[in-house]
């Protein structure tokens, strides 16, 4: 190579010629050295290239950009395609802040333009701010800054983008979010859901701000993680920029940890991250202080307000009244096509104008009644021929009404007459009903009386019948008790003690052993006859008849039989039951002598013939009297 250069010196001295020949040689030399990766050459070139690029960037950056673009752009594209998240993590701290600043500047310019335009117009807020600045001595710019205060940060989450797992969290003061793991996951799901929906509908990449009530969620994504800031209100652009800058610092420091996070909450880095977040929240929130109004300005403000009110009220009222009149007239015009004028006069509305015919007049009145339900004063002009026509119509109408009224009066009179007749008929009917009712009551009383009488007569007849049948009744009762006793006679109710052997021959005193049987029969007999008050009054006497056998003289037998009857009567009268029933007063005795001796097989049974008979006698007078009494 050196030999070739020496020879060139002798061949040619033309500078241009020498350059042409040397340059290919240098290129070849440099290429050979670079291919062999010669350390010295590379070191020289690296310094030179860096310096060359730096100088070129200062002198002609556009040319340098054009030169590097074909190489750098594909390389970056390739790297982003292979390691998208890592590239974002690396580039975000630079590009995120830069983009945010550009966006903020652009928005600020936009806001300034808007402000300038607003300033050209009358703004109450501006006037208020200007007055306040004058009164308080604080500049208008400072007041403007005070109005745009920063939102308080309540919590910040750092969440793994893909899994939604919470990596770190920090809260302000006592603020605490229940179950932050689940909240982070759910927020991640909702964010994914919204992003997915946005991608399907518009070409916007990420959801960034979610507002709920007065609070907001500010979400900033970068690579493998995203940040969620819970704020008291929507953050302004500057605050978003501050949050983004903080997030960029976090990413710069921990992007490797974020990329490799596997859900292990014990990692040391998490505590560091949470400490950093906590400091950022404290730094942001401690600058915030409650806004305090200057007390001295309050009365002045009230005074100004009252003053403005006093000035503006009459003007406002007039404007309002004129506007209302205009609206009313416009409505009337729309509905009737009439030019009607509305004027307020005291508490009334005056309606004036011309109406071409009666139909329109009716329409107008209908509209006016709806617009002025409280009433209005009508000063409308109607053409004369219309009024004449109206008068004729009215006259016709009045005639028709008169006819109708006359007919109605006739009908009314007829109705009144009919009503009076009906009233009289009703009265008569009512009186008749009353009379019928009285008759009915009287008949009912008579019937009841008759019924009572009949019942009484029936009772009397029943009693008379019982009296008339008193013997049969007594015989029936005696028959029931003594019917099977051979000594009892059913026909007359007498009792013949013919089987007893009551007396010894010639003796008047009955045998002691026969007295018990005598007593037994006698007590039953008198109980039936005298214990029943229905029967007792009609028993005149109970008769004891004494008998002898047919031996001896007739007179002797008559005395003996009387003595026998008397002994038995005395004995029976002495019985306690006889005394109780008063038998002693009606008990009588009689001697029958040897009358009716007892025969057996054609021969007299003398022992049986010495006997007594017992019978009762009715009191016919008492029966007759009772019958008479009952039939009275």
């Amino acid at each position, binding site marked *: 190579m050196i030999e070739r250069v020496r020879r060139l010196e002798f061949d040619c001295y033309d500078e241009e010629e020498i350059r042409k020949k040397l340059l290919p040689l240098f290129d070849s030399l440099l290429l050979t050295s670079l291919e062999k990766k010669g350390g010295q050459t590379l070191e020289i070139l690296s310094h030179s290239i860096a310096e060359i690029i730096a100088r070129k960037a200062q002198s002609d950056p556009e040319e340098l950009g054009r030169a590097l673009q074909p190489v750098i752009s594909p390389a970056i594209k390739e790297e982003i395609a292979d390691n998208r998240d890592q590239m974002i993590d690396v580039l975000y701290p630079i590009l995120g802040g830069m983009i945010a600043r550009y966006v903020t500047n652009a928005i600020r310019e936009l806001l300034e333009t808007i402000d300038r335009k607003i300033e050209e117009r009358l703004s109450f807020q501006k006037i208020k701010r200007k007055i306040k600045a004058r009164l308080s001595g604080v500049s208008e710019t400072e007041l403007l800054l005070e109005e745009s205060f920063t939102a308080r940060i309540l919590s910040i989450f750092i969440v793994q983008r893909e899994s939604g797992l919470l990596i770190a969290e920090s809260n302000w003061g006592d603020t605490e979010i229940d179950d932050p*793991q689940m909240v982070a996951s759910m927020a991640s799901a909702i964010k994914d859901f919204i992003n997915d929906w946005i991608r399907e509908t518009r070409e916007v990449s990420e959801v960034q701000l979610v507002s709920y009530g007065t609070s907001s969620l500010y979400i900033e994504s970068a690579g493998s993680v995203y940040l969620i800031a819970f704020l008291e209100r929507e953050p302004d652009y500057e605050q978003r920029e501050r949050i983004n800058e903080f997030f960029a610092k976090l990413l710069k420091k921990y992007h490797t940890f974020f990329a490799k996070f596997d859900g292990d909450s014990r990692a040391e880095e998490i505590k560091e991250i949470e400490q950093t977040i906590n400091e950022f929240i404290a730094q942001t929130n401690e600058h915030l202080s409650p806004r305090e109004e200057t007390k001295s300005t309050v009365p002045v403000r009230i005074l100004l307000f009252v003053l403005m009110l006093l000035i503006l009220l009459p003007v406002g009222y007039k404007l309002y009244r004129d506007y209302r009149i205009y609206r009313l007239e416009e409505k009337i015009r729309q509905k009737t096509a009439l030019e009607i004028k509305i004027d307020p006069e005291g508490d009334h509305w005056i309606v004036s104008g011309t109406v071409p015919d009666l139909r329109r007049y009716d329409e107008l009145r209908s509209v006016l009644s709806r617009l002025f339900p409280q009433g209005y004063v009508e000063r409308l002009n109607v053409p004369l021929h219309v009024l004449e026509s109206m008068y004729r119509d009215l006259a016709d109408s009045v005639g028709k009404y008169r006819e109708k009224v006359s007919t109605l009066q006739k009908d009314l009179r007829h109705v009144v007459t009919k009503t009076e007749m009906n009233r009289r008929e009703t009265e008569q009917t009512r009186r008749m009903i009353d009379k019928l009712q009285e008759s009915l009551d009287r008949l009912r009383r008579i019937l009841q009386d008759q019924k009572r009488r009949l019942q009484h007569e029936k009772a009397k007849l029943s009693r008379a019948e019982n009296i008339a049948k008193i013997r049969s009744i007594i015989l029936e009762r005696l028959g029931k008790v003594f019917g099977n006793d051979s000594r009892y006679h059913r026909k007359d109710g007498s009792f013949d003690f013919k089987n007893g052997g009551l007396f010894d021959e010639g003796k008047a005193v009955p045998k002691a052993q026969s007295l018990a049987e005598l007593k037994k029969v006698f007590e039953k007999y008198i109980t039936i006859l005298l214990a029943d008050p229905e029967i007792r009054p009609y028993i005149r006497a109970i008769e004891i008849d004494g008998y002898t056998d047919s031996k001896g003289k007739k007179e002797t037998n008559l005395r003996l039989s009387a003595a026998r009857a008397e002994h038995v009567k005395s004995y029976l009268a002495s019985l306690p039951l006889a005394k109780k029933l008063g038998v002693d007063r009606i008990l009588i005795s009689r001697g029958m002598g040897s009358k009716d001796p007892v025969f057996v097989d054609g021969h007299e049974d003398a022992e049986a013939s010495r006997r007594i008979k017992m019978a009762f006698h009715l009191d016919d007078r008492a029966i007759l009297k009772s019958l008479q009494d009952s039939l009275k």
Partner: protein
Amino acid sequence: MIRKKILLLGDFHVGKTSLIRRYVDNAFSDDYLTTIGVKISKKTLTVDAMDYELLIWDIEGATPVKKIPTHYFAGAAGAILVADLTRPETIEGLSEHALRFHAVNPKSVCVRAYNKVDLIPEESRKEIELPPDTFITSAKDDINVVCLFETLVRRIAS
């Protein structure tokens, strides 16, 4: 504490939500499932002396007119694929769910649950063929529910 995101996948009405209700400590309202297609629940458990916190994403089942939203799959450490034993087509559909899941998470693991075994008579249960890492489960009678989740955690840990 190690936190993991796991998914429950399967056709519509196979009992995914019931399995989660039977198992978890804390959950968001079921309304989220119908609103955004996912409901998140939490369960803390200890497996092999290690504490885990599972964030269980109950993904809405596929219907003929609605596909499963796969953007929820990202970052999941594992999945439980659920089928209804009384509907054979849901068992056949598990392969497609597994494919979709592994397409997003190639290194993650799956276990399978043949659910609603309470509707199968006792004598017929022995005849059910079970592929590896598959459990017959019943959210109603609490059969194998805990075992299912613990097995998935072991697979993730290993």
